[in-house]
């Protein structure tokens, strides 16, 4: 990471938060300060912590599980109406205030793939959502889509998975599909 980020963190008087994160738990007072911090500085800080604690892998969950997982923060939460900026701030706060190597997951069905991708730069380490058509409809089993210049037909599920992988890679991260939400 660049010294630019170091300077931004220093300029926002958040060095102690990073230090606290590295050595133990961020205090409630520090979290309160993070809430009022500039969004991009907060994002850069959370992204650094994410890189240090969980690396570049992004786990992708495409099948909803039966129960909420207790150790995962999924954002946006059900019923939450968030702007994009809200979402990014929440993701970064979840990363900074959660336990070490917290599982911070973004549900692209609720916020859209575009915002989910941006959230990967603000501390998120997992993605969740249903694979669907462009219009959000569930894929029909065996459905095929045209790809490439000669409109070669491929299973829609595979095409969509490749698109998801591309989304993650273009955010500078490494995609890895989980079979289902455990």
């Amino acid at each position, binding site marked *: *990471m*660049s*010294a*630019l*980020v170091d*300077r*931004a963190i220093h300029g926002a008087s958040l060095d102690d938060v990073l230090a606290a994160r590295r050595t133990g*738990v*961020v*205090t*409630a007072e520090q*979290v309160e300060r993070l*809430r*009022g911090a500039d*969004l*991009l*500085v907060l*994002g*850069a800080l959370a*992204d650094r912590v994410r890189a240090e604690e969980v690396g570049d892998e992004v786990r992708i969950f495409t099948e909803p599980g039966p129960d909420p997982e207790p150790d995962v*923060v999924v954002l946006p*939460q059900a019923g939450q109406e968030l*702007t*994009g*900026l*809200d979402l*990014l*701030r*929440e993701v970064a*706060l*979840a990363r900074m*205030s*959660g*336990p070490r190597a*917290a599982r911070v997951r973004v549900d692209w069905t609720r916020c*859209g*793939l*575009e*915002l989910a*991708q*941006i959230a*990967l*730069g*603000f501390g998120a380490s997992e993605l969740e959502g249903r694979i669907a058509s*462009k219009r959000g409809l569930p894929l029909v089993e065996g459905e095929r889509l045209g*790809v*490439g*210049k000669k409109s070669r037909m491929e299973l829609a599920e595979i095409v969509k998975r490749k*698109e998801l992988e*591309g*989304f993650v890679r*273009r*955010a*500078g991260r490494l995609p890895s599909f989980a079979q289902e939400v455990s």
Partner: protein
Amino acid sequence: MLDAIRSKVDRGERLSPEDGIALFQHPDVVAVGQLANQVRERLHGDRTYFNRNMRLEVTNVCVASCLFCSFAKLEEGSPGAHTMRAEDAWAELEARMDDPPSEIHIVNGLHPGLPFSYYEELLSGFKRIKPDVHMKCFTAVEIHFFSKLYGMSYREVLERLRRAGLDSLPGGGAEIFHPEVRTRISHDKATADEYLEVHRVAHGLGIRTNATMLYGHIETFEHRVDHLMRLRALQDETRGLQAFIPLAFHPDGNGMRNLPAPTAVDALRTVAVSRLLLDNVPHIKAYWVSMTPEVAQIALRFGADDLDGTIVHETIYRAAGSRSPGALSVEQLVRLVQEAGRMPVERDTLYNVVREHPRASLPEAALRVRERKASKHLEVLS
């Protein structure tokens, strides 16, 4: 590398093409955004602009065969082809006179069969209905086409259109200037030099213009930087560009539908790098139709200072699969800006202030986070 660039930015020093490529390649898009935000705030503080505008595409008949276009139909009579009667176009404005736009933005296909008088009448008719409406009409590609079709110089075309009511030119048609790309995606319309020459002539006549770049298809970062450098050079010469608008490629229904659309991260990065490289262009737009209102809002923290406007009626991006709404109200635009912690400023086309709206005392997002129930991890902390 980013630190060296930051030093240049701090000193107000011009960035090189190599710096631009490094910024596009840098893995930390948030850090690039911070740099761009620094420049944006130096230029504009929190002020974030928008206007009340109305889009019209009076014809989609077009002799050009651009690979990225989902809007144009090649011939009159083709399924989906349309050319509005001037009266029908004027009726669109008349229907909105309760809350009239300050700007009408017209962009069309290159129709080979219309007389030049059609465009002159179109402009003068709008001015008859609302004399103070700003007519931002016809891209440089259209002006070049008119020049060839009607046998006039660029200057003659622009002077006649201005007499009829033209006030400024939009920035469309720039695509990617570099011939390695341009000859592949839009080989049969104005070249880069011709596009830039139209702008040069317009600026010489006192007509302000915008410029665009269509990114996220087959071009490389080097092509993008080349594009920005050419615009910067033109601006050094004429100072006539008001705003730069990066336009994200949308793949539905066009000759490049096999390509993925550029991602939101790419959109933010392109806005940021544009802000940093185009040090002489006053405004960078986050065109919400192209990047969705949500991403445009975030772009206001990545170097953009303008959201364009209410739009109403855009069809070009919708034909290419954009999921953005067809229009935003002034209230929606104000809220988008306030939620980003910025100060909304309604402007006219030439960036004269129409109305300053209050800014939220803190970013509304932060306020709402504070009021919201703490997440489960925060509960653990307390």
